[in-house]
């Protein structure tokens, strides 16, 4: 597997508030996310993992440092270009399923393409639909689908536009273990079979066990990394991480 970089952060700092109330969510983070791999960002709550993902996904702008998607530096782009970038080059899967309630599953899946005014590639669409197993559910509205099905629709929506990177923010946070397992297998499958780049924020060691690489964050800094993880290894590492925290503070 080549190690082309899909996105990277260089000296990324994100702070909220001013003066006394200043909170540093990300402190001089430099990290590379390789293309065609499934990367997890882990850390205890408040470690800055969601902020990091938001900065990568052009939803939030850094206070200092640079974020690159491919070769483009996000900080240089205006709102209009960022909107287009999100639409054309990035896919999202949120914790709460975040579908448009008035649209059917199919319309939701094709929404980013429709907004862009692009025609969907029928072959690709069929492939995605079959992979997520939603063929029979396409004309249903979100409130007629189960939580797992809704999240699969969200995944299909992220995949439909063949984005460079899919960002998933706790995608299994609201699901039972069976549905979680399905979603994670599906994401894994997308990486292996379709060559999709996926970055997932999670605090669940079981979920992290599906990935190729884990970046550990604590207090806004990259504190560790793990390749080819298993859930047991992750669990151990997380314990260590938690134990180390007081000494670092």
């Amino acid at each position, binding site marked *: 597997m080549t190690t082309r970089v899909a996105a990277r952060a260089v000296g990324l700092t994100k702070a909220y508030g001013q003066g006394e109330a200043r909170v540093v969510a990300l402190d001089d983070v430099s990290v590379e996310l390789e293309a065609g791999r499934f990367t997890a960002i882990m850390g205890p709550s408040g470690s800055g993992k969601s902020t990091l993902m938001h900065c990568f996904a052009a939803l939030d702008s850094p206070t200092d440092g640079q974020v690159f998607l491919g070769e483009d530096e996000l900080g240089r782009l205006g709102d209009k270009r960022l909107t287009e970038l999100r639409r054309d080059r990035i896919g999202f899967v949120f914790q709460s399923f*975040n579908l448009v309630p008035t649209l059917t599953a199919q319309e939701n899946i094709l929404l980013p393409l429709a*907004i862009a005014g692009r025609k969907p590639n029928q072959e690709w669409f069929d492939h995605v639909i079959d992979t997520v197993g939603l063929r029979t559910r396409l004309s249903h509205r979100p409130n007629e689908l189960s939580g797992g099905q809704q999240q699969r629709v969200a995944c299909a*929506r992220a995949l439909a536009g063949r984005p460079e990177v899919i960002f998933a923010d706790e995608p299994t946070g609201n699901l039972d273990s069976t549905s979680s397992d399905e979603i994670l297998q599906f994401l894994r499958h997308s990486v292996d079979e379709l060559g999709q780049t996926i970055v997932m924020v999670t605090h669940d060691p079981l979920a992290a066990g599906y990935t190729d690489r884990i970046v550990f964050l604590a207090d806004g800094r990259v504190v560790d990394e793990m390749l080819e993880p298993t859930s047991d290894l992750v669990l151990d590492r997380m314990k260590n991480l938690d134990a180390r925290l007081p000494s670092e503070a």
Partner: protein
Amino acid sequence: MLRASWKSLWARKIRLLLSTFAIVLGVAFVAGSLVFTATLDRAFTSIMNGTVGDVMVRPAGQKANEAFAQTRTVPASVVDQVRRVPGVARAEGDVSSYSTFVVGRNGKIVGGQGAPGIAVSYHDAPAGHGTPGLTVREGRAPQRSGEIAMDPATAKRADYRVGDTVNVVTSGRTPRLSARLVGLASYSAGSLVGASLVVLDPATAQQTYFAGRDVFTDVWVTAEPGHDQAALRKAVAQVLPPGTEVVTGDQAADEASDDIKDALSFISTFLLIFAGVALVVGSFLIVNTFSILVAQRSRELALLRALGASRRQVTRSVLFEAVAVGLVGSTVGLGLGFVLALGIKALFAQFGLDLSGTPLEFTPRAVVAAYVVGMLVTGLAAYLPARRASRVAPVAALRDDVAMPEATVTRRALGGGLMVLAGVGALLWVLTGDRTRETYWLGAGLLGVILGAVLMSPVVGRPVIRGIGLAYRRTFGAVGTLAEQNSLRNPRRTAATASALMIGLALVVMMSVFGASATRSVDVLIAKNFTGDYVVSGTFGTPFSPTVTDQARGVPGVEAVARTRFTQAQIDGDRTGIGAVDPKPLTQVARIDVQQGSLDRLVGKTVFVTDKAAKDKGYRLGDQVRITLGGVTTPMRVVAVVKSTPALLDVTTTIAGYEAAGGPHQDNYAFVARAPGADEAQVRAGLERITAGIPTVAVKDQDEFAAEQRRPIDQMLTLIYALLGLAVVIAVLGIVNTLALSVIERTREIGLLRAVGLSRRQLRRMVRLESVVIAMLGAVLGVVIGIGFGIVLQRSQSGAGVAELAIPWGRIWLFVLLAAAVGVLAAWWPARRAARLDVLRAIATD
């Protein structure tokens, strides 16, 4: 509980203010109309009290300031008899006229647009209860022919000073007087509310108005100190000859001011109708606002329930908010009503009804009415949402997605459908035959249709939205689909918001259909029935001197001149109008379709009747009809039945019969036919030479005459459009409100759309398209209903002159386009707000 209500009220103040606006407008109209009416009341009562003595003697059955004043008189001998009655200090004969106008230095009439031009004979007797009567303010009173006085305000408006030679036009035998202004005189009230006052010496007045006969319009009696009006009235009644009657000054003043107030009552009726429209439309806005507020707060309300608040407490907390909103709205509305009354006062000053001497009357009645109306409407409108709020289950506080319990849309639509059917039934029933209480049935029918349509609109609106949605998908793609789906998401809310616009537009379209029909009817009527070439008529619709008509006969090239007169009368006991014509020339200038009998037999005390009157009243050839004018009844024989046209009154007699019955010696119209071959320009110039010095009279050809007849319709329409425009403004605020709330409700969804790549522009467009859907829905339903209503109105008035139906399609299309523009405008603020939402925060919102 109260504290919680207060806090929630404060937190939503802007939203509530928007819906309060409707209440403010409605209340302002109610209060403004009441304040203005009270002001008029006071103005006229104080004027009239100064223009009568302690007791007035007058021809029997005749009120003050009626047109017959110049034919029905009191003989001079009565004045002497009354003088001898014990307790009488003075008795003075009055001569008065209500169509005598001053020609200003610039050659134009002073006042005249609605306000009378009063002329009286001079005497200095005090008015009732010893208050000052007619008082000379400058110079002296007129004493002989060629001298005149007028009130200071008129002199100022005409730009005359004492010593100037002034011109006056009258509807009496002498159409035009020139005299020296010897003094300025006025009644105690000073202001005459825009009327002008001319004072002549008694002999000149009798010469001008009664051709020199020694008779009076009435007798002004002053009591000796210590005699009250009622007792003196009784004493005077003893000596009066038959045909005269005596009333107390107080009664005469009341009658006179009541008459004027009646004539002006259309103003308050008008304002109250618009208050009604504003309040109905406003209540929709309130129902909607509170429904949405309650829906938004459902979790909070459920929490209150979970914490032990009873259903009633929840209802009450919502109602409390409504009442507070009503209170604020009523207070602001009351203030605005006062301003509105000031505005109307200023507007009326433009038309010559000058109330500048009278301060606005701020009656307790207006204040009470403002608060009652404002708070009642708000409370009632908020009751439904408040009750629904109380039905939220306490457990909802713990659940994620709270849905408000909603009655099914179909059941309402069914009810609405029934109401529409009942309304249409009532309308058809009224239109297909002669019915009693026609107006009530019409009103009930229209109300039924519109309320039914409001209830049905969520269901009926669906295909309309689908249709617009189809166009949207084609044109705007995904953004269009989203907008369409959003408007279908809560059909009831969309429909309720659109309903406000629907009502406003339905009324606007109804009035424009009716107005266009009325205009067309006038044109058709004149083209069909008026075969003459010119019309001579009063410029303000006032009658003019018959001498003008006589002179017109002498103009070279004129073949025939037909004078026509009309006035109020009682015919067989019914109060109605009676017309009078010269039978012979009439057929040369107008087309009259005789169905029975012959106009040849129309001589002296005979009448012809319309076929409609013959059917309604059962008149037949040879029947006697009893014409009562100014208290005297004259029987006349029916000699012909003619086809009814809107130009003809039910009963028309001859000029001779009219004068014999006591009709005033004044002409209303003179129709002129040119001799064949006569030069058009010369005839017209000849006619205009006659009217040149009399600005109250003008010559018009057929087109000008038609234009003149159309003008009041156009003016009326403009006024109605302006007022209905307010209803549309309220509707726009409703759309703004609904959209703003939708944006807040869908914050997370908007964040999501932005996250997956919807640009700010696309987002704004989405909101705008949704707004246009609502506006177009209201417009389409409103136009359909409005055209229907316009047709109903035209049909119901076809007997009253609006015989032709005309639908002004161009104007209606303009309204629809305006509605779309209104939609775009209404979306501006909510769309901006939506576009400004921070994506991350929006996604994180619950």
